């Protein structure tokens, strides 16, 4: 595979050597995926895996204007990683990563019109990470129930303790259960 041609075709991509993947701006994700799918050399017809990743905001050290290292807040973002393989040419993978702008209202384009295999996987990411895929034909929760409100795979998810608990010995669940019972009694009184 001539990845240099690929890189030259789309200068907006960025090669991430640590993970051997291309960081793709979400405006051109569909364009790039279409190229990978239709180009006679690549023929990436199988989108094998679509995975969401949550990166919380963190401190990072960068060199400031005066050359001294400055600590800076790196904003958090959500990321979707696509693994492309070629069934007809038996090659791959090509890995694309697409990042959202921040974690508050994450929106990415849906790749389902090009690859049906993303249909359920994008629904799963929407369900567990809360990334909205614009253009997805049927974006609903898939694993959690429809009334569920939070996004459990996010790193800052706090599990609620007021339902589906079962007292097991020597567990903080037991302590939580006692607390709930006290609260319940207080409310009744």
């Amino acid at each position, binding site marked *: 595979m001539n990845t240099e041609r690929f890189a030259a075709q789309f200068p907006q991509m960025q090669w991430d050597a*640590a*993970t051997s993947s291309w960081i793709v701006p979400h405006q051109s994700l569909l364009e790039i995926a279409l190229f990978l799918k239709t180009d006679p050399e690549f023929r990436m*017809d*199988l*989108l*094998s*895996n679509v*995975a969401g*990743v949550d990166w919380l905001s963190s401190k990072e050290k960068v060199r400031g204007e005066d050359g001294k290292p400055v600590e800076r807040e790196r904003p958090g973002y959500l990321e979707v*990683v696509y*693994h492309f393989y070629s*069934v*007809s040419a*038996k090659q791959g*993978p090509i*890995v694309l990563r697409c990042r959202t702008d921040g974690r508050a*209202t994450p*929106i990415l384009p849906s790749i389902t019109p090009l*690859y*049906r*295999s*993303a*249909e*359920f*996987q994008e629904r799963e990411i929407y369900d*567990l990470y*809360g990334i*909205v895929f*614009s253009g*997805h*034909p*049927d*974006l*609903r*929760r*898939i*694993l*959690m*129930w*429809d*009334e569920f*409100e939070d996004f*459990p*795979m996010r790193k800052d*998810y706090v599990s609620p303790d007021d339902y589906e608990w079962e007292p097991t010995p020597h567990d903080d669940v037991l302590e939580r259960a006692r607390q709930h019972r006290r609260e319940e009694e207080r409310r009744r009184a």
Partner: protein
Amino acid sequence: MLDLGGANAADGEILDAPLYGPRSYRVFGDDALAKHFLEISMGPHHPSTHGVFRMDVVLDGETVVRLKPVFGYLHRNHEKLAETMSWLAAIPYTDRLDYFCSMTNNWAYVLAVEKLAGIAVPERAEYIRVIVGELTRLVNHICLAGFLLADLGALGTPLLYAFREREKILDIFEEISGARMMCNYMRFGGVRVDLSPEALQKIHRIAERFPFFLDEFEALVSRNEILLSRCQGVGVLPRHLAVNAGVTGPMLRASGVDYDLRKVDRYGIYDRFEFRVPLGEHGDVYDRYMVRILEMRESVAILRQALAQIPEKGEIMNPQAKLRNLRPKPGEIYSRIESPKGELGFYLISDGGPCPYRYRVRPPSFINLTVLEDMCLGQKIADVIVIFGSVDIVLGEVDR
């Protein structure tokens, strides 16, 4: 009438709509069509849904006009669980993904971590992995054939014959790993227990006897007139759709696409074995059944070669491999194997800590369900059961 919850909405509209929360879709309004169509909910307690699985089926008479799979009843957020525990502690949880094939699940996860952390596997352990992996394939495919026939109405007999043979293989698993289904057998850098000469002898016997059993099983049903008329030409999956929808495993090969990861990726030591990849021609239910039967014969061939080549003695664990406190260097890996159901992949990100930063399973049966609606549209409701049975899913893996 059909409100698909933002299906064709432009970006702006989606922004205006409430971003999160349930997006319900209504199938019917109060118009005249409602009189003709019937929406039924098949499952989650339907006996042939292979677990707790539900299909929202819209029927026009007996013909399916719409089918939406609904699942998540077994959801336990396996991925989140694994992100809170050590790399080692996730292995027993992978058993519970596809509980018919715990050995290959172990293998897929362990292989991914070995690639991530750069752990070598001794020769004998590689052979043992191939042997138990192929035995798992036998277990899975023969059970699928039995379940498929039970779905067709052949209640009992073929399924129990299949389970009888499975029992012999599970006995071997119990002997080497201590449990019949939740084997928890592989470790980073090898396998946990060595195969004793007696166990090898039993596997020899399986490799010898299994083709005869398959002959008998095929004599029982493979050319049965009822089976032919119920399966042939039903639930056709065209080749281009199969690839585009990410369908993998025997289902993809039944549609005539030559893609077997044992041949393509040659993970482990699969480059040392000679075997053929059976391909279907029509992509219907009968092809999916037949491809699995033929694949079992090839698995037996691999078993025979592995048993002939396995070194007499040798290490089964890499002595450098650490059991506890594994901390791979920061990085990520996507590694996949050909599990009996299809491409089972593990996408792992390590941040150098004691537990995975991101642990993602690419479950084959989950993604193979994408095309369920396409295969069922226009078919009769009774065929939905058969088509669904030929997809070969395990809800433990679909829901995770």
